[in-house]
């Protein structure tokens, strides 16, 4: 084992980065905040931090859908649409059926979309990318049909969602009341529950899990349903933040959420990564958005930059994991 000492410091650094991906991510985040402060001195203050966290929360929650599905080598591109549907259905039904019922129906819609994804991926074995893209398309069509018949009675957003979405306590957004337990549960669950372990296992080698007695369809079915429900909850929270239901409410979260998970070190081919990285990834993307807004960049530049960042970070990870 004397070879270890012969390793160059660069390679050692690389190894550390692979084993603890959170460190470079945090450094990147701090670096970006530093640049932001240089660009506009004084912008980084408690109020700004609160706002950044507020907008990072829904991104990170949809990012959970992406992280969990990506661990199995999948993806959930319907998450944004599902979140939108839950938000829209809930907001339009509150005046008609009351808050608890509307919430239940809204989340039930999300669960159904998740079940459809689960069925497609688990039973019919469609590639998740295609299945969820298709489900998103279908669900969006359903939403458009729905809004033609239901919009008449107006919309109302439950008070507690507004409190969660816009309220602050001690300068921190109230959304954390939901998000902190949520994140803790996911991070604990991915390592310390049988289901979490199986996500990594299925993503690493599905044939091997089959020979070990795992019925893969059960895992996929549960996973995509869970992903749908998480998307639904995110939709409700986002509704509280944005305060106006629209037909494209959470759609802007779809691709950035994939970016957040990828930047956070979760491999899109499965078996590697985790949710803590995604949370930092969501913060990084949110800070970056602020920066671009500040520079008054046209939308085109923002997209190009997002794309290049996903590419660069993933390329860096690939390089580092290969050396390890």
């Amino acid at each position, binding site marked *: *084992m004397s*070879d*270890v000492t012969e*390793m160059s410091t660069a*390679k050692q650094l690389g*190894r550390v980065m692979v*084993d603890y991906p959170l460190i470079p991510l945090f450094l990147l985040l701090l670096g970006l905040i530093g640049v932001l402060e240089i660009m506009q001195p004084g912008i980084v203050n408690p109020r700004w931090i609160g706002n950044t966290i507020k907008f990072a929360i829904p991104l990170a929650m949809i990012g959970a859908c992406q992280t969990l599905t990506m661990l199995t080598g999948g993806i959930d591109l319907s998450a944004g649409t599902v979140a939108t549907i839950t938000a829209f259905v809930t907001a339009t039904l509150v005046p008609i059926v009351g808050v608890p019922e509307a919430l239940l129906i809204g989340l039930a819609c999300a669960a159904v979309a998740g079940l459809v994804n689960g069925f497609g991926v688990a039973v019919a074995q469609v590639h998740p990318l295609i299945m969820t893209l298709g489900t998103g398309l279908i669900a969006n069509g359903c939403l458009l049909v729905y809004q033609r018949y239901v919009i008449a009675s107006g919309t109302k957003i439950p008070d507690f969602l507004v409190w969660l979405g816009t309220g602050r306590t001690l300068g921190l957004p109230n959304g954390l009341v939901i998000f902190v337990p949520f994140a803790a549960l996911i991070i604990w669950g991915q390592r*310390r*529950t*049988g*289901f979490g*372990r*199986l996500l*990594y*296992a299925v993503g*690493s*080698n599905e*044939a*091997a*899990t*089959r*020979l*070990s*007695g*795992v*019925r893969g369809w*059960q895992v996929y079915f*549960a996973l995509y349903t869970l992903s749908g429900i998480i998307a639904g909850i995110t939709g409700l929270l986002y509704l509280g933040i944005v305060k106006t239901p629209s037909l494209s409410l959470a759609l802007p979260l779809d691709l950035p959420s994939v970016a957040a998970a990828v930047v956070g070190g979760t491999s899109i081919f499965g*078996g*590697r990564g985790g949710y803590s990285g995604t949370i930092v990834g969501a913060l990084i993307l949110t800070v970056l958005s602020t920066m671009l807004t500040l520079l008054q960049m046209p939308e085109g530049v923002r997209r190009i930059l997002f794309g290049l960042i996903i590419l660069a970070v993933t390329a860096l990870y690939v390089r580092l994991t290969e*050396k*390890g």
Partner: protein
Amino acid sequence: MTGQDSGTAVLDASGVAKRFGAVVALRNASLVVRRGEVVALMGANGAGKSTFVKILTGALSRDSGHILIKGRATNVTSPAAARRSGLVPVYQEPSLIPDLSVTDNLRLGDTPVAAFRHWVDALGIGGLGMDDMVRGLPLATLRILDLARALAGEPDVLLLDEMTAALPTDLVERVLRVVREQADAGRSVIYISHRFTEIAEVCDRATVLRDGATVGDLPITPGVEDQVVELMLGGAVGPPAASRGAHEAGSVRLGVRGLRAGTRLADVSFDLHRGEVLGVVALEGQGQDELFDVLAGNRRALGGDVTVDGQAVVFSHPADAIAAGLTLVPGDRAHALLMSRSVRENIALPLLARPAKWGAIPMRDEGARVLAAIERLQIDTRAQGEVRRLSGGNQQKVTIARWIARGVQTLLLFDPTRGIDIRTKRQIYALVRDLADQGAAVLFYTSELAEVRLACDRAVVIFNGRVVDVIDAADADEPTLMRAAYGLTGVPA
């Protein structure tokens, strides 16, 4: 060591080194091959053999060292470049394109068709359609086609990596004959194999690698095996296989009656008792794959009955088989392991399979089970982290440890020692015996006939999808098994 002979050497590699991050795969490997010579390249698993082969054939770049081909310094940067300089490899896994026809595969590599056909005929593959998709061909045929393609390029040096593994015996003989003929025609062959009998038959010399360095170069003489083993193991020879005392066979654990599956398993019946290690001997493709797949719940039977402890069972998924106590170690480690996960996660996998176990993991209980299994199998876990960083032998141990941690009732081992080093093989024999002594039942398919005596109590011989003989380990010398495997005993013609 090599200076004097380099004039006549076709291939002269010296001081080759390669590291992957912290892991040194090769530190000082050398190999000299002279014209008209067959040289065996030997080494236990993890000795750096496969890395050396990849470097020689241009599939990997080297960190340092020299490679002279026909006296010229060569820097082979790809298999195509190696081929141009006269060194043509036949790798362990067939390198034909599954979705192209045989003809298109030849076009792809600019292989002369007439020469290819000549070698296919010489190697005795009849009825090959040149427009057949490669995907549909059996593994043994693919390997022969790969060899024929290499030979058609008239290589100065032919490199055969475990060429005869998974080949039926008649093909092995033809391959060995062709190898010898190459040498007689003044060409050279690098022959990599774990099988001493073949090496004794065709090789002139053996170059032995250990821990990434060439440690010896011996002419092949009678009795050289002991020297080679000593060099490979570096003196640290493990204990011999546990000898077994005469013991009473227990009750029937697994009963198989008239089992039929796929196109090859026609009619197989046998009983596997508690406390017994039952060998399965068969030439390639006699239905043994289907047999193990059915017993492990990985494939449906077309007919026949399977009983476990007298109860009839039908498995529609491996989970059913596991619930009945039948657990499989498949022939290919890549099918069993989560390469990018830890040893612990790999071993604990079956413990979490059922949805009832999807909740919080009892970490302490799991840790204890995994540790016990690791210790029992003496898995070298110095390479912390991902299983892919382990050597082949240790990976194989992990696939077995998985079932030890869960508790073994009936273990189905499909060629568990294929391609691993002698020390690990012996550990596996001892473990299997140990498990049987504790009441487990073990079904042990092996492609190496000598293993039957080392590991089994008796062996069923399958030929053409039927059991043709049952042989006691005491009588299971290689000629007897060989005759049976060819269907020459047991059943009337």
